[in-house]
């Protein structure tokens, strides 16, 4: 009897289908991607059961970090420039086009107006290293040294439809939050959103 030799086969796999799937997924992720914007400070918000989503556009974010420093940012780059122009006009300052451009690229910032010009003249890498001192606020919300009120006012002047979101760090102290609150109240802003993480409501809880 002749010995049957098994036919040698090269183990080749057809990769086409896998490639198709990979690029399909890639297309999906590219289209749905929303990149994490560069935040001025690390803020870790507490969680709540509230399921309302934060709007993507027309939003003003006031961030409050662990040490109680306040950061401010609005969403649209054109509005950022308009806001800076308004603030510059109100404070009698002027910014060059280069500084305006740098300002438009910042998602949020936390420097007093007096230091803003020198902060903007730094290049990107240096700016990341600078420890931002936070925007000055006070407990009454209407004092002259309170700069948050100027930013809020001029941001609303640049875009009237802005909604206000406060993003506080879990461990920031209440008095710091109160300062932000009274600044907004002094401007007759009585409705705002608190950005929180999402947690599951207790079992059996229904929203009605």
């Amino acid at each position, binding site marked *: 009897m002749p010995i049957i030799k098994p036919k040698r086969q090269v183990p080749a796999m057809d*990769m086409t289908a896998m490639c198709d799937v990979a690029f399909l997924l890639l297309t999906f992720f590219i289209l749905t991607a929303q990149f994490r914007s560069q935040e001025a400070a690390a803020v870790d918000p507490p969680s*709540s059961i509230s399921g309302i989503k934060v709007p993507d556009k027309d939003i003003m974010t006031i961030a409050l970090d662990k040490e109680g420093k306040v950061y401010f940012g609005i969403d649209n780059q054109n509005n950022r420039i308009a806001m800076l122009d308004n603030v510059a006009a109100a404070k009698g300052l002027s910014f060059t086009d280069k500084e305006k451009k740098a300002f438009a690229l910042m998602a949020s910032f936390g420097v007093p107006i007096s230091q803003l010009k020198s902060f903007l003249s730094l290049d990107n890498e240096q700016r990341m290293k600078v420890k931002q001192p936070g925007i000055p606020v006070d407990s009454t919300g209407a004092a002259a040294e309170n700069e948050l009120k100027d930013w809020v006012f001029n941001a609303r002047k640049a875009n009237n439809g802005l909604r206000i979101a406060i993003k*506080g760090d879990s461990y920031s*102290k*209440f008095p710091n939050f109160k300062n932000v609150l009274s600044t907004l109240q002094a401007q*007759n802003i009585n409705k705002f*959103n608190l*950005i*929180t993480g999402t947690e599951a409501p207790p079992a059996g809880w229904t929203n009605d």
Partner: protein
Amino acid sequence: MSEIDTGGGGGKKGGGKVRSKKASTRVDMTPMVDLGFLLITFFILATTLSKPSSMTLNVPDKTKEAETEPIKASSVMTIFLGKDNKVHYIFGKAANEDPEVVTVGHGYDLRKAIQDNSRKVPGDKFVVVIKPTKEATYKNTVDVLDEMAITKTKRYALVDELTPDEKKLLKDKAQLDL
């Protein structure tokens, strides 16, 4: 299949013509797949995974003096947010009545206390006053506001000033020096 059959077809056969060597047009897809998955990994990691949610907070207008009917002190539960994530609450008024100060932690105990107290008040007259002290953190405040949503307490207020009576009460009964 990515293979394209190049053999056969039209073409004259035989006749001593020099035929070009048959070459397979099969393309090796492995590097392309590698690249695809690499990019997928990048996009997964670079996107924000969970979108944060937000809770709405409405505060009373400071400029307008709204006409409101006075609230009976017996239907008010006052929640003080103390330090180290402790919560002190009283049911009733701090002045004169000398109410019992109960200290609980956040979470189940507080929720149960709110629910128990709300049952003592008939109808929808139950009011919660939230008073964070200067020792409280932002998380404590959000937690209690969240507790209002969980217990479906419709009437609550966030007040940041403590009366002298309340300060004294907290100092005497909760050892909280403010």
